[in-house]
């Protein structure tokens, strides 16, 4: 009998599968809240567990126990499906990024395209959920979410395609792998071309981070759920278990965003030998989470029209310039 299927099953369920994603998402929420609080000269979660580390879990459990209200005028199917899809989509995507070793559990050629497709789907789900709740605030929030997606989706895709073009593959695991190889050869024989490539990729990383901020609806792009304007935006009407799923979904999206940044630009879970790849993965993604929470402490919120205008005026052209540079590099290499 082969142990292969058993190990795969364990990987899917325990590590780096569902259990790990669940725990790590909550952990990252805690890190995010702590860092955000410290930047603002306050404590953040403090009492639940060691320095409040269990606070996100406690919030999750508390929400599960709360009354779950579906508005009378809401479209039941859409309203119920949204939180489930909102959590499961990023969770599925987590299987496409390498965590435990050089290859992800479900890696295949072209999974980068699937990732784009699915992240767009998340926005669609948000829009449907917002629309089916029929609340004025959710409708406005849903529309804002869709509008915002139109402005950041293309440059975000371009930024992610950069390393893919250089690595000549559309598999996330392979891109990460290529990056590691490239770094190794660069360190062995430094060339001017290598420096240029690194600079261009660093620029791509900046573009991608900006896009991720918008994707994750973090300040300054938290427009679809701008608290002071439209209450909680598209998830205003959600409560109880559904809200718990949505919040968990957001956390999973956060770590998915961070691990995508890691895989595409930071070489995935690889690192110098004595430390296992899983640890490297955690270190790198945590760095990305810290980066995101620092950035969101630095800005005021944009207005939706400003975002659309600003994105098309600066962000898209920058992404195009970046893509041209990448193409040139690809030809030279």
């Amino acid at each position, binding site marked *: 009998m082969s142990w292969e299927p058993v190990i795969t099953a364990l990987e899917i369920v325990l590590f780096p599968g569902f259990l790990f994603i669940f725990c790590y998402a909550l952990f990252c929420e805690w890190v995010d809240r702590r860092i955000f609080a*410290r*930047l603002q*000269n306050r*404590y953040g979660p403090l009492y639940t567990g060691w320095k409040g580390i269990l606070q996100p879990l406690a919030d999750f459990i508390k929400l599960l126990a709360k009354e779950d209200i579906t508005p009378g005028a809401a479209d039941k199917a859409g309203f119920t499906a949204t939180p489930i899809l909102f959590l499961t989509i990023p969770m599925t995507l987590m299987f496409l990024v390498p965590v435990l070793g050089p290859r992800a559990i479900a890696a295949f050629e072209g999974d980068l395209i699937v990732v784009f497709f699915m992240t767009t789907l998340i926005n669609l789900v948000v829009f449907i959920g917002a629309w089916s709740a029929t609340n004025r605030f959710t409708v406005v929030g849903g529309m804002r979410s869709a509008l915002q997606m139109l402005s950041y989706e293309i440059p975000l895709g371009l930024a992610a395609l950069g390393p893919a073009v250089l690595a000549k593959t559309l598999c996330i695991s392979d891109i990460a792998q290529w990056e590691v190889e490239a770094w190794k050869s660069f360190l062995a024989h430094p060339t001017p071309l290598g420096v240029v490539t690194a600079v261009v990729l660093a620029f791509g990383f900046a573009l991608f981070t900006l896009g991720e901020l918008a994707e994750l609806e973090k300040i300054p792009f938290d427009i679809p759920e701008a608290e002071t304007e439209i209450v909680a935006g598209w998830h205003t009407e959600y409560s109880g278990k559904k809200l718990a799923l949505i919040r968990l979904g957001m956390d999973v999206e956060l770590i998915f965003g961070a691990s995508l940044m890691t895989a595409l630009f930071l070489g995935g879970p690889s690192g110098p030998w004595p430390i296992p790849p899983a640890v490297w993965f955690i270190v790198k993604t945590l760095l990305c989470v810290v980066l995101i929470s620092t950035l969101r402490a*630095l800005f005021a919120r944009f207005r939706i029209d400003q975002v659309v205008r600003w994105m098309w005026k600066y962000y898209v052209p920058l992404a195009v310039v970046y893509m041209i540079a990448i193409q040139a590099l690809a030809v030279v290499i």
Partner: protein
Amino acid sequence: MAMAGELLRHLFKKPVTLVYPFEKLPPVKKLRGRHEWDAEKCIGCGLCSDVCPAFAIELIGGRGKAFKGLKVYLDRCLFCAQCEEVCPRKAIRLTEYYEMAAYSRDDLVLVFKKEEAGE
């Protein structure tokens, strides 16, 4: 980005927030907190009850001879200290004790009783 420097400087500083039930600031002098009453000094004139804007002070028994003590409803009290100000004998006084949270309004009634002589 204008605040970047300020933020990073504070990242490794101790937060200013106090972890309240465990850390406390000392109350300032002459804070207006819970009442205190001196049975010896009180003459039962009832002025404190008259000036109270929230009707939070009740006389037990009545004025003068019939006076048995005071009832102070902390849930209604505004902590303006007008009672302390008008008291001719300085018998009622606001202390610096400020932690008065309670689960029920009934726990927020202070009863000051004059002890009968000889008891």
